[in-house]
């Protein structure tokens, strides 16, 4: 059983996101471990990119902060390697296509396998373009995480039937970021997914409060939180560890209830 599958084995999963290199790679390593200690079931590591078109302002700014220092792909892999020595928590990358294209697909997926990355999420590779990465991800045993959006409709079946790892259900239109309420029929989407696959579904985009996380996890297999955590890091910088711990702990408790 893969590490990702295990993350969804014991009740609802809480998935935490941060951007690598914000405020520094040393802190990224520390904050990942802090999230795990607080109960995060899976950690999503954002590879910083100059033009993150799927992100709202909070994560856009995190990308820019991270890129103020040179953050190389090799340095990010080193962080993964160090984290992997200390925990078996599943780790996935959130990345845009270009940094990976530039690094080289073969080398990138080989290093993912070698350092212990379990899956890759990118907002820039829809179902029709999966062929771009599939031979590499299959060969190196890294899950390509599929995204399903409020507008996916009849596409849900084809996407879900080929999904591996978990399915990222996008709760809202637009970009990442905190929202006061989520109006999409997430329950309906998850039900359609369930008709074709048992791959776990986690809901992301717009979740920040324990109530939202609990509600979303209640109708799926887990909740993904990015911007709210990145906001804590933006506010506390180098001293965010205890704040991250408290927040993640509270959110994990909410999804577990």
């Amino acid at each position, binding site marked *: 059983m893969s590490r990702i599958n295990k993350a969804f084995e014991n009740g609802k999963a809480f998935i935490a996101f941060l951007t690598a290199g914000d405020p520094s790679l040393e802190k990224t390593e520390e904050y990942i471990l802090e999230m795990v200690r607080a109960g995060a079931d899976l950690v999503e590591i954002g590879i910083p990119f100059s033009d993150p078109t799927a992100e709202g302002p909070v994560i856009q700014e995190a990308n820019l902060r991270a890129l103020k220092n040179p953050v190389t792909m090799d340095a990010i892999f080193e962080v993964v390697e160090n984290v992997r020595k200390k925990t078996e928590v599943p780790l996935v990358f959130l990345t845009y296509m270009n940094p990976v294209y530039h690094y080289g697909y073969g080398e990138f997926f080989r290093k993912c396998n070698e350092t212990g990355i379990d899956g890759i999420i990118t907002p820039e590779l829809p179902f029709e373009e999966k062929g771009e990465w599939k031979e590499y991800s299959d060969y190196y045993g890294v899950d390509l995480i599929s995204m399903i959006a409020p*507008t996916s409709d009849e596409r849900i079946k084809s996407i879900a039937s080929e999904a591996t790892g978990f399915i990222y259900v996008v709760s809202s239109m637009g970009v990442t970021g905190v929202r006061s309420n989520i109006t999409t029929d997430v329950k309906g989407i998850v039900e359609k997914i369930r008709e074709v696959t048992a791959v776990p579904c986690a809901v992301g985009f717009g979740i920040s409060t324990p109530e939202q996380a609990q509600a979303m996890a209640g109708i799926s297999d887990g909740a993904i939180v990015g911007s709210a955590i990145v906001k804590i890091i933006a506010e506390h910088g180098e001293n965010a560890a205890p704040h991250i711990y408290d927040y993640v702990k509270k959110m994990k408790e909410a999804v577990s209830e």
Partner: protein
Amino acid sequence: METGRFGEFGGQYITETLMNELIRLEKEYEFYKNDEEFNKELTTLFNEYAGRPSLLYYAEKMTKDLGGAKVYLKREDLNHTGSHKINNVLGQALLAKKMGKTRVIAETGAGQHGVATATAAALLGMECDVYMGKEDTERQALNVYRMELLGARVHPVTSGTMTLKDAVNETMREWATRVSDTHYVLGSVMGPHPFPMIVRDFQSVIGKEAKAQILEKEGKLPKAVIACVGGGSNAMGIFHEFIPDEDVALIGCEAAGRGVDTPQNAATIANGSKGIFHGMKSYFCQDDMGQIAPVYSISAGLDYPGIGPEHAYLHDTGRATYVPVTDDEAVEAFEYIARTEGIICAIESAHAISHAIKIAPTMSPEDIIIVNISGRGDKDVAAIARYRGIDIHE
């Protein structure tokens, strides 16, 4: 060739949220492009509203002065709103209206595409929001006011480098937020499929006219067709009809800014490498970690770190050639054509003129060059004056 691809270039590297919309756009476009009624309406808009066909003008003084090939100018600067941008915008806005959309959004650099979109929206009775880098809203304050006069809302973009690429980012974000009633009128032959194809097709009227006009005037095809290239819509528009005519050289002029060997340029083919960005696989200016590089040109319309995927393909297959032209050379050409032919062209188009000035004298008087004057230069006069040390503000 695979649908939506030009060789390996192109594709649909875009968020799932927009996929159904792109699929629908392609279907609707495939229907309407063969629909008699649609084509009649578009032709009427082109001819009765935008002032098409645009002139193919024999630049006799320039020809004599350069002492080589005969130079013809395709006068897209004479179109309504002052550039080739109106061709694509009328096509897309009409298509959007047929699709039941009530709102259009667009990115803009210098403001030409924004003004054209605001114009079409006013004419067709649609809501319009334009995204423009904050730096550009300051450089082109007159165009901002022009768009507002036309009833559009202009949103200054404060993310990233606050220029054209960031305006594209923000328009994409807005489209993913509100797609059901909104069409994104992409301004160049770029972005995810089907945009590079749709924009090319609507712009291809330039080359179709030019070919018929030159055959009528000269009874033969030109030796070279020259156009400036940012994303590449005016170039693709004039090139496309000539692609099968292998004896016609197709030459795109990129913005080399302060020089291709300086960090301040936007010469994607000269300096860029393959990558994936803004929904397409193509060439991009990027650093050694695959981050998109900040670019620079005196021309806001060429100040983009990528190039349309069909251009990437024409480059790789050798069918078209891309040459860098610096700010200095473009400004000299801008002044030259004003003095010689009495035409104040856009600083973008001056990049193409500059290359014609270089190659015409090396060619025979039997040869013909067609240069695409993609837009008029009123918008650039103050900037050129400042470049020459004269402090004029609009």
